[in-house]
């Protein structure tokens, strides 16, 4: 158990050291989300009606949730690369904890997610977003985001070990994650969607998370959303962490 903790920290450190040296990933965490915020706020924002909220207030929690989900791509791509370059073989031949390579990756994602959440919040505030709730609620919202992002990293870790190349990580991840985030309450009110799509959106975990964020940051009626979001996040870890670890054990490096 001590081994698991120290090895996980060593791998997390490795992933954080290398981050500034891989500019393409860093751009993904910084420039790209800012671009999306600006596009939605100024291109679509004028045409989308969100009763009860300014669009910028409605948008920021949604887009931050989407962005946090995509944060796990660093894990998916990184693991895929480690397998194809044989680094996983090196790790598996070492007397280290079997779960640490994945644990370290997903742990590092928490740090990168915290970075991009900060960047998005600052951008949001500049273009007019404000918290409507107490400091504690706002902080709880950030905690929930990190928890959800952590869960999603495990899902993407599994994807990264499942497919054969970084290109397929991108396409599988994109096809799986993009519609999920868009067919939710992240960018538009669910009520505006046609039948079928609307029901899907209502049950979509992303809607649960986004609505939980709106209640924590904007004071929207909470319902069971916050608890629902916590349960969803934990459930994702509970399902995909064992799947990813088992996949890792059998990963044939070459």
């Amino acid at each position, binding site marked *: 158990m001590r081994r698991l903790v120290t090895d996980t920290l060593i791998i997390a450190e490795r992933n954080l050291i290398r981050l500034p040296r891989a500019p393409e990933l860093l751009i993904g965490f910084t420039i790209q989300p800012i671009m999306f915020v600006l596009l939605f706020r100024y291109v679509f924002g004028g045409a989308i009606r969100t009763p009860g909220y300014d669009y910028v207030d409605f948008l920021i929690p949604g887009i931050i949730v989407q962005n946090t989900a995509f944060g796990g791509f660093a894990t998916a791509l990184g693991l895929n690369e480690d397998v194809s370059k*044989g680094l996983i*073989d*090196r790790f598996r*031949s070492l007397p280290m904890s079997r779960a640490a390579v994945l644990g370290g990756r997903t742990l590092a994602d928490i740090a990168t997610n915290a970075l991009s959440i900060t960047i998005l919040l600052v951008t949001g505030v500049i273009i007019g977003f404000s918290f409507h709730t107490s400091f504690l609620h706002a902080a709880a919202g950030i905690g929930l985001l990190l928890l959800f992002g952590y869960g999603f990293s495990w899902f993407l870790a599994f994807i990264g070990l499942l497919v054969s190349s970084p290109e397929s990580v991108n396409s599988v991840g994109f096809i799986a994650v993009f519609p999920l985030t868009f067919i939710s309450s992240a960018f538009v009110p669910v009520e505006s969607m046609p039948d079928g799509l609307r029901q899907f959106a209502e049950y979509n975990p992303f809607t649960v998370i986004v609505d939980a964020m709106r209640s924590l940051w904007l004071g929207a009626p909470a319902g069971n959303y916050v608890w629902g979001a916590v349960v969803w996040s934990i459930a994702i870890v509970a399902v995909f962490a064992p799947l990813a670890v088992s996949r890792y054990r059998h990963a044939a490096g*070459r």
Partner: protein
Amino acid sequence: MARVTGEAAIEVEGLVKRFGDVCALDGLELTANPGQVLGLLGPNGAGKTTLVRVLATLIVPDAGSARVLGLDVHNDAAELRERIGLAGQYAAVDENLTGLENLTMVGRLYGETRGPAKARGRELLERFDLIEAADRPTKTYSGGMRRRLDLAAALVAKPPVLFLDEPTTGLDPRSRLSLWAVIEGLVAEGTTVLLTTQYLDEADRLADNIAVIDHGRLIAEGTSDQLKDRLGGERLEVRLEDGADPQVAQRALAPMSDEPPTIEGGVVKVNVRQRRGSIVEAVRRLSEVGAGVEDLALRRPTLDDVFLALTGHAAEETADGDGERDPAGERDREHDDERAREHAA
């Protein structure tokens, strides 16, 4: 870590590993003595990489047993991992970390604390002539430098047994020579090395013992000299002058050998019964029939000849230079199967 002397460092018995329909290891038997280099020769798809992966605890065999330093690769895997080093043709280092960061990370994953791990990393970088590049990300390294770093990473914990999977494949001749020197240094310190290679000169130079495997089975074993002796003695090669009839020369030289001489591209090759006097005898016989000789040489069989005779195909003809991913390394297998073993006998 001391082991009873006389005990084999690597002991493989009846090892079987299948990937779907493909039998990568088919009852392989193998032994390596402590402090020796065992060279594993074989074409692509022979099962070399699969064996290394089994011995390095990366994959579990389907049948048979494999013990390293007396530890079973499956049941005692955790203990065994403390005592082995693995380096290969893929140079498994993190490109975005510096050389020193890579080695420090590996040291810490062996359970060392940061300070000593870093010191050991520096020591290895010094030894492998990488100290000046210690603080550069390894993506700026040349192929040879990466390979040396990969080998250094395998040595972090001073393992008594080292697995080197085609360590010089794709390297330029100079890098290759320097890597050979490093390996010889390790062996001089008492490390047991299992080395897979497609290069016969590499096996000839480094290996105390050579195991030739093909189709997942051991087909010959011995020192380089023993293997060459199996092919019989010396071979006489006669290049004829332009216009001379090779078949006349072939008939003239036939009595010197137990098997009929062969003709390859104008060169008549004769496996002579004995070295002494055979050049003089050949010249006499050839001049009797009036066959003009351009060049004439007597040579020992090379490992290439051994390989060709044993496996029915040349060693390097299937060499993969591109290091493509191939889970079992067995993609070329069917291809190999088609090649008849007609030369074998």
